[in-house]
């Protein structure tokens, strides 16, 4: 019953996280969902998972979100050039650091479950070594993607106005599929970035 109660509270926090208009508040609500998750994991006899959840889920993810909000959550980009560029470069680095942290975390051992053949760390590091190896693959490809996405590259000369809907491919008659000739350019340059 207590778990259900906790879950309902978590669900309430989750709704708040989604409904609130303030992004930072939203992240805080998410962090509280994470904290409640941790408690539920404890009550479900999964303390190690709980620790990781609180460190990664409530910690790292929340930090990342705040980062992202500080970079992207504001309306204009003009005044933050130097600041966000600095932060941007550290973004992957910080991610990796946090991940290393949990790997190195000393975790308390608990008794195996009734049908478990081994303890947590044996299962994780030996029985399911493949999963762990794959985590490395996942982290590696994520880091590559991050580097790719956030690489310090020349921004296009103009931030392009993208919101206006455009009849990209309106109907043509079926037998002769002729493309519509676009008179107006799809992307209109709107303002220059200094």
């Amino acid at each position, binding site marked *: 019953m207590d778990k259900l109660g906790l879950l309902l509270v978590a669900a309430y926090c989750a709704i708040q996280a989604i409904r609130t208009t303030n992004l930072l508040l939203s992240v805080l609500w998410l962090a509280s969902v994470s904290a409640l998750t941790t408690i539920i994991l404890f009550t479900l006899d999964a303390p190690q998972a709980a620790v990781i959840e609180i460190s990664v889920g409530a910690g790292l993810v929340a930090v990342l979100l705040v980062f992202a909000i500080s970079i992207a959550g504001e309306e204009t980009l003009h005044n933050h050039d130097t600041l966000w560029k600095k932060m941007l470069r550290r973004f992957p680095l910080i991610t990796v650091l946090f991940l290393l942290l949990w790997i190195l975390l000393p975790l308390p051992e608990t008794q195996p479950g009734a049908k478990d053949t081994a303890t947590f760390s044996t299962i994780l590091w030996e029985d399911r070594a493949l999963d762990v190896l794959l985590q490395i693959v996942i982290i590696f490809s994520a880091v590559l993607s991050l580097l790719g996405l956030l690489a310090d590259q020349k921004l296009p000369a103009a931030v392009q106005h993208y919101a206006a809907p455009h009849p990209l491919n309106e*109907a043509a*008659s*079926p*037998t*002769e599929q002729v493309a519509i000739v676009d008179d107006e350019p799809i992307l209109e340059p709107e303002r220059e970035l200094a």
Partner: protein
Amino acid sequence: MTAWLVGLTIGLPWLGALIVWRIPDHYPQRQHGIAVIASLLTAAVSIGLLTAHSTEVALRLHIGGIFGDFILVPDGLGVLLAAIAAIIGSLTVIFSVAYMEHEACLNRYYALVLIFIGTMAGLGLAGNLLLMFFFWEITALCSYALIAFDHDNPAAVAGGLKALVITQLGGIGLLIGALTAYGRFGTDEIAVLLARAETLPKTELNLIAFSFLIAAMAKSAQVPFHSWLPGAMEAPTPISALIHAATMVNAGVYLLARFYPAFEDVTGWTTAVMTVGIVSALMAALMALVANDLKRVLAYSTISQLGYMVFAVGAGGIFASQFHLLSHAVFKALLFLGAGAVIHSVGTRDIRQMGGLWRSMPQVTIAFVIGAMALVGIPGMNGFWSKELILERGLDEASPVFVVGLLIGVGLTALYTLRLVWLVFAGTPRFSAQVHEAPSAMRISLGILAVGSLTTWLLASPLSKMLAETLPYHHLHSETTRDVISDVMAAPITALALVCVALGFLLWGLHDRLGWLIARLQLLSQIASQDFGFEALNRAVMRSTSTLAERLRSTQTGELNWNIWGIVAGLVAILIYVAVEV
């Protein structure tokens, strides 16, 4: 030896196609030359194949798994089709040397024609259903590519697409039938289907019989699947002669004839086949009567003649149908090539803008008239003998209604043919272009075909013997040409048919004085000129499909949240299904 002949009949033109495709447009002479050589060689091989006909499997290629073996059998029906394809094919290629002069992309044109010739031969010779379907579809593909050969002409593109889609729709019939047979027998050999058809469950045999009928109707342009054939007239005229008159459209008749023994006892099948034939013959004849496009008239007449052949199969006249198939292939190819010569020099296809051509192109006129006489069934022409055989068969086997229909058809044929010949060649010219006699390459083809129209009926005995010898399930008995002549001469219906022909001619002769009758028939003529509404039906189907597509496209809004709605809805649907199942 037979294996070689079979392999070469299919392989030679394909090899030629490969070579000619590699020759760029700068060397038109080489393109023409290689195409002519390849097609002539094929024709020669196919004549050899005619003599090597047998019931035995000539080539067997093991494919494995569900695909079984690919089998080629040079039996009577098969070698006839292969020989027609190869011989008429070579004549059209020769004709094309003149007709397609100065055209671009000749390498593609000849490659496709040669691929078609090989494929058509393969279709006839295929001994298992998968291979048959395989060739069946490739002929449709070639037909599409050649109709749309002028890819800048929207009418050609639309016509090609229409031909492709409708014959493919029919192809589904062949597919379903073939697979049903395979599902029961575990093999798709045609001989097995013919031998063990009675052992099939009744519903499945019905399914096979009627789906093959649909396939045949689509391929042979029978009503209501006929509307692609007039559209196909956008193709270069030699293509119309080869594919849309002499060979590919025969595939449907061939299919029905080949499987007749298996389906003959299916309730209602023979009646359905005869009905399809008669209805097509009559409706197409009416449409030919009111059409003004030279090639379209011929296309409708092809539908009508194919209707006769389909009817003949339904009436059990396998020999009669194949005999008429042979005659028709020759005289219709002649007519189309003649029309091609006319169009080539006049520059229009509208018969209202022709007239008086006999003065400027007498040789073409003679050839065309010979073809027209064969089409009408003037005694002595090949079309006469084969058509009379069909009529005789109808009189013996079918109900009087059908016979009356057949006779009306004969009269209508005479009427529209005379109208066509009259408008094109007689009277005074209604055009301004300078017209010359056709070039020699064209005249060679026309001459050979004209001689053929006069003489191929002499082949009745060998043809009948070949069919009787190699088709064990059809229980045919061999007839000599003499038998055919005496049969036809003795049959009362021959006289009736000739009377109908005479009536048809008379109607055209009197058409100036029959204004009141024509006025009465205005409505009918209007309906006929609009394709009896089938064209509108096609268009409606097309329009509704594209409307549906457009509606569906608007569900792809591109909004992330909407997409998530889709995912959630899908999950809910699955879970509801699961809940019901549990």
